């Protein structure tokens, strides 16, 4: 990071090679849109380049600092009043023929996707970080500026909401 602060582009390129995919993955998980996630990845690294001289070593090092920038950028986007319509949310590409079970899968995925994107932003970020991105509870709490106990509260509320919105699918799985 000190080399980057001194304007070393080679060091900056190496930092991107190592961490860009992770940052974009986190942003994709939170924003549910690959294009927006790449925009966040770009803005995160441009900020790293501009602000590298302000970085001071702390727990988690530079990767944690970059994840914090990315999560904050994602939260800013989620807080914008005119959010993307739910229709624009990506569904995973599925090359298989559309048999009944496949259609049911798609319907289920769409319902889960819709339920996740409808969560309050901090619950959504907590859920994605801990469940999809494998971020530790302690780091997720740090990224959201809350205690570990408060993070648990966010996760409990997120799961409770998802369970109530997806009750048909949860019960369906229990019956099968």
């Amino acid at each position: 990071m000190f080399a980057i602060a001194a304007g070393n582009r080679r060091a900056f390129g190496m930092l991107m090679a190592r961490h860009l995919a992770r940052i974009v993955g986190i942003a994709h998980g939170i924003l549910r849109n690959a294009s927006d996630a790449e925009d966040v990845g770009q803005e995160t690294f441009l900020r790293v380049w501009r602000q590298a001289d302000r970085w001071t070593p702390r727990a988690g090092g530079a990767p944690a600092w970059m994840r914090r920038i990315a999560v904050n950028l994602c939260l800013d986007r989620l807080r914008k009043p005119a959010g993307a319509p739910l229709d624009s949310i990506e569904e995973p590409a599925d090359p298989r023929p559309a048999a009944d079970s496949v259609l049911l899968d798609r319907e289920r995925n769409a319902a889960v996707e819709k339920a996740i994107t409808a969560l309050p932003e901090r619950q959504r970020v907590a859920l994605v970080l801990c469940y999809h991105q494998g971020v530790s509870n302690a780091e997720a709490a740090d990224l959201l500026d809350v205690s570990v106990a408060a993070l648990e509260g966010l996760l409990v509320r997120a799961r409770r909401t998802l369970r109530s919105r997806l009750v048909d699918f949860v019960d369906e799985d229990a019956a099968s």
Partner: protein
Amino acid sequence: MMTERRFARLVAAHGADPARWPEAERHAGRDWVARHPAATAELAAARRLDALIDRTAPPPPTDASMLALADRIMATLDAREAAMPPALPAPVAMARSRLPRGMVTTVFAVAAVALVGLGLLLGRSVSLSQTTTAEAEQMLLLGGPALTAGFSS
């Protein structure tokens, strides 16, 4: 220490997979499941919701898309740096960052006047040091034009 209440909270927050439980409580949580048959049913219910959440995890970005993005970031850096004005000399940049906008002009005007004055003084001393002893004596004796000639050189 694991309690019924704490175990319920653990599962309600982190689901059925012990790998997602806080590391400090993982062992106690597993132990609780082994000793309490009711916990198994609790985990089974949580596991169904876990499965639904897990199925919507977005795929990791491809190497090709990340290479293209890295190129875009470098190109943006180039464009932004090309659009920036040339870097200011360090003292000017430092003054700009530390002084109010109006003060910068005043400080540099005062500094310019001081530098001109210093230049005149140095010019005088240099011209005096370059005069010959005879000329100096003449200047001291006569003053006037001979002395002013030193400033104009």
